[in-house]
């Protein structure tokens, strides 16, 4: 007997294990798995009993067999409830019935409670079945109620209204996400990549109702465990259901009312806007846009009470320029503000256009830096510390003339020379690329004659110079080989410049896009473009067939690229002004008080920094490319006169009192001027220029008082300021001052140019022009 009981005991335990697993899965809401597990348990039990029955003449252990049969029965019951629930949850997902938290699923671990839970499941059936099965249902089932997940949570109340429409209208989710993709570098970090709000908002009525229902559910569960097996459970369940449904209904009604209220308000604001102005005079905003924008701004203000405070302040002191400045700063630094969002769209537009263009253009000529090494005599100038620089330069100029004559005829070899001048502090890394451009059409002849050229310059130059040349001759030869490789490579790529200019044309044509539809007629560049285009196509046909025309063609291509760059510049400047005027118009739409001459100027000045700083790297690069030639000239002069003393630039003796060789004079002013490149907006650059001019005067003051104590001579007139500034420019070694100046000139508003700022800019321009003219002497 005992021997027979053993296997059956084992079977019972194994069956219990299976059932336990099934119950665990059930409690985890893995309905499908639990269902299978239940059925498997049944199969196992019946299989065991069957083999036993076949092997013996009767149930060996009646008690155990009965228990097993009971277990199987319970399993079948559980499985059937599970199927019910599966069905239920499916229909729920379709209908989207209000969710509720976790099922009161059985957690009973063992055989003993099994009965009880099964009974509970059965008795609670009506209520239990209508409930969603799990928390997962709450999360995954799409709610029919408006504003569960897709809308920003809204406040249920009186003081601040939720932006139901706001969410839909302002956040451009698709375009916003797509547009951020091309963002790189600093722009990405300065502009918000996602318009999603990080702000906390009060929950909407519906969300509140969900939370309430969850609490109810929890309370219900707690009570259920206490009342296990009692009769009034069904009733309790029903009342819970009723309450939850009521809650949802109320919440839904509230939400509806709120939405209606919001719509009402939006209409109200639009009407208010319509009453206030037909359109802002002289600004590029049509009437309906004004009204829409005004409503949007007002709605935004309803959430942001601090903006209301600003509005009140502005109404009181509309003349206060400082207040205007602060307000505009606040608005434009608030990423959620409708105006700021629009501005970011403009910036993205600019960036999207400029970035690819600038990337392409920057590859062509290398960045101009000082020392600018064109031939080895430049190095001579740069390296020497002769105080007789200016007088001796004439002598050397005649020498240059010889070399320059050569470089006119054979551009290729001189380039190779440059490439190999390794002892020069020049930007050698980039010369490979540069020479590839220059050598593009250099004939084989030119390459062969290069040895001769080097020899000539070697013998004609001064002693130490010829030494230098000899030492690099070998390098030159290897460079020529490289050059030949490059030439063959470039033949394959020889069509690229033309493609570039076609791209450029495409840019110009697309430029006048949807943003300012009304302006499309103004596109005066169009006819010019067309002819350019035709030309380039004609040339396309000729390329490759006639090699000798290569040089001429290259010139033309260069000229065309140059033209295209200039056109881009004009267009981009126009766009930027357009965009800024648009932002200004929006500000005025939002705040009528700003619509005065002083107010407008202040707004424009204040918006510069936030507007320009994310895009300046691109805008600046375009300017540098456009002013490339001028920068080269300036760099040449800076290289040649890098060690000139103030006296040599015409600074009167009295201001050079402390002039000792090696001590950097006017160092503070030079440092200040260098900072101009790190400023990211025209106005901040201009302010930097003003500080530079002041620093020049202060340095001069300091020098005189230290030197001869000539207090009366301290005042610096233009006669002194210009030579001093020229000296400071030379010392700064920044050829990009040319393009910096150009960009300031283009973007700075006229209002600024009458005052000290204008004077300083004019003086800087004059001094730059003078310094650049030194390169020609």
């Amino acid at each position, binding site marked *: 007997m005992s021997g027979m009981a053993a296997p059956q005991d084992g079977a019972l335990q194994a069956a219990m294990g299976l059932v336990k697993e099934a119950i665990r899965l059930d409690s985890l809401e893995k309905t499908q798995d639990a269902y299978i597990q239940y059925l498997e348990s049944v199969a196992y039990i019946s299989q065991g009993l069957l083999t036993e029955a076949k092997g013996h003449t009767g149930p060996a252990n009646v008690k155990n067999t009965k228990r097993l049969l009971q277990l199987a029965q319970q399993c079948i019951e559980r499985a059937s409830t599970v199927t019910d629930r599966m069905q239920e949850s499916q229909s729920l997902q379709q209908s989207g019935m209000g969710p509720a938290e976790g099922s009161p699923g059985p957690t009973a671990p063992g055989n003993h409670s099994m009965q009880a839970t099964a009974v509970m499941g059965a008795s609670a059936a009506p209520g239990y079945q209508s409930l969603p099965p799990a928390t997962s249902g709450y999360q995954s089932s799409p709610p029919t109620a408006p504003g569960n997940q897709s809308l920003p949570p809204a406040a249920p109340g009186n003081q601040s209204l939720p932006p139901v429409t706001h969410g839909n209208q302002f956040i451009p989710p698709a375009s916003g996400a797509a547009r951020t993709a091309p963002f790189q570098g600093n722009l990405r970090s300065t502009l918000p990549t996602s318009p999603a709000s990080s702000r906390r908002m009060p929950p909407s009525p519906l969300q509140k109702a969900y939370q309430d229902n969850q609490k109810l559910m929890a309370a219900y569960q707690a009570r259920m465990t206490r009342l296990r097996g009692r009769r009034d459970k069904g009733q309790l369940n029903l009342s819970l259901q009723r309450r939850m449904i009521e809650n949802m209904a109320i919440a839904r009604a509230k939400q509806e009312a709120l939405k209606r209220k919001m719509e009402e308000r939006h209409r109200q604001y639009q009407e208010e806007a319509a009453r206030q102005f037909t359109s802002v005079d002289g600004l590029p905003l049509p009437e309906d846009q004004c009204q829409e924008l005004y409503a949007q701004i007002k709605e935004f203000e309803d959430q942001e009470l601090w903006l209301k405070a600003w509005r009140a302040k502005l109404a009181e002191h509309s003349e206060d320029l400082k207040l205007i400045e602060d307000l505009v700063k606040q608005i434009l630094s608030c990423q959620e503000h409708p105006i700021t969002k629009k501005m970011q769209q403009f910036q993205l537009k600019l960036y999207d256009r400029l970035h690819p263009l600038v990337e392409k253009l920057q590859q062509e000529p290398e960045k101009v830096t000082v020392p600018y090494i064109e031939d080895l005599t430049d190095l001579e100038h740069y390296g020497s510390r002769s105080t007789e620089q200016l007088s001796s330069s004439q002598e050397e100029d005649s020498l240059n003339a010889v070399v320059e004559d050569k470089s006119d005829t054979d551009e290729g070899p001189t380039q190779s020379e440059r490439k190999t001048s390794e002892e020069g502090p020049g930007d050698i890394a980039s010369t490979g690329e540069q020479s590839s451009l220059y050598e593009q059409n250099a004939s084989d002849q030119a390459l062969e004659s290069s040895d001769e050229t080097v020899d000539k310059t070697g013998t004609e130059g001064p002693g130490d110079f010829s030494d230098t040349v000899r030492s690099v001759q070998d390098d030159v030869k290897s460079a020529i080989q490289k050059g030949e490789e490059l030439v063959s490579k470039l033949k394959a790529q020889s069509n690229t410049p033309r493609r570039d200019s076609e791209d450029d044309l495409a840019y110009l044509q697309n430029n006048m896009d949807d943003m300012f539809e009304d302006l499309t007629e103004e596109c005066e560049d169009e006819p010019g473009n067309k002819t350019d285009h035709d030309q380039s196509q004609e040339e396309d046909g000729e390329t490759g067939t006639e090699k000798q025309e290569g040089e001429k063609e290259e010139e033309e291509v260069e000229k065309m690229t140059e033209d295209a760059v200039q056109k881009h510049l004009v267009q981009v400047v126009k766009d930027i002004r357009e965009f800024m005027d648009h932002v200004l118009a929006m500000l005025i739409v939002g705040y009528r008080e700003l619509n005065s001459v002083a107010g407008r100027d202040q707004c424009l000045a204040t918006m510069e920094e936030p507007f320009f700083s994310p895009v300046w790297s691109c805008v600046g690069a375009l300017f540098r490319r456009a002013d490339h030639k001028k920068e080269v000239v300036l760099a040449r002069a800076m290289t040649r006169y890098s060690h000139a003393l103030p006296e040599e630039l015409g600074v009167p003796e009295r201001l050079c009192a402390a002039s000792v060789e090696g001590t950097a004079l006017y160092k503070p002013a030079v440092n200040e001027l260098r900072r101009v490149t790190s400023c990211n907006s025209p106005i901040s650059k201009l302010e930097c220029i003003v500080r530079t001019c002041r620093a020049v005067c202060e340095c001069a003051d300091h020098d005189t008082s230290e030197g001869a104590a000539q207090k009366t001579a301290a005042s610096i007139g233009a006669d002194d*300021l210009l030579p001093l500034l020229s000296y400071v420019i030379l010392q700064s070694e920044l050829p990009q001052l040319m393009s910096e100046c150009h960009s300031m000139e*283009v973007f700075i508003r006229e209002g600024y140019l009458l005052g000290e700022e204008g004077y300083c800019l004019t003086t800087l321009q004059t001094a730059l022009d003078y310094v650049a003219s030194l390169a020609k002497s």
Partner: protein
Amino acid sequence: MAAGGARGHQFKVVLLGEGCVGKTSLVLRYCEDKFNDKHISTLQASFLTKKLNIAGKRVNLAIWDTAGQERFHALGPIYYRDSNGAILVYDITDEDSFQKVKNWVKELRKMLGSEVTLCIAGNKIDLEKQRNVPAEEAEAYATSVGAKHFHTSAKLNKGVEEMFLDLTKRMLEKDTNSKPDATAKPGSTRRNIQITEDEPQEQKSGCC
């Protein structure tokens, strides 16, 4: 910060003259006199502003000093563009400096037309004994080009105040006579003006 936009009259005055004729001392004398150190800005004597009240009208003068040296003249036009007035200074002991004044008058008239109000200042009258430019000749020349002539001495503070006052009055007259002028509305005319400004400069720098 911005010079434009404020109510009242904004005038730009350029100061022209060869080096060493004393234009800097002249303007320093004028601005120093009433406000002492306060009005010598950190830019010292190169750029000065002066507020005046003439017959109830508020006037703000921005006085731009220019370099006398020949080598800085290439970009002269950008200094005196949009000028309302110009003071041309010569040294009465230096005939050459008077010739230079004549050149400038020609250029100003060419660039700015009759809009600009001119003053010619014969400076250093404290050195009357060494005079090389006859007073009659200078005055006759001034009237012939529609300018006013003043005898000044920065050292003795003679004629300086009068000259600036007279210039300001004449600029005011011109300003009120020709109302729809560029000085009236900086905001609305900005674009047109700037575009026309850009072009000659680009050509200029292109050729060098």
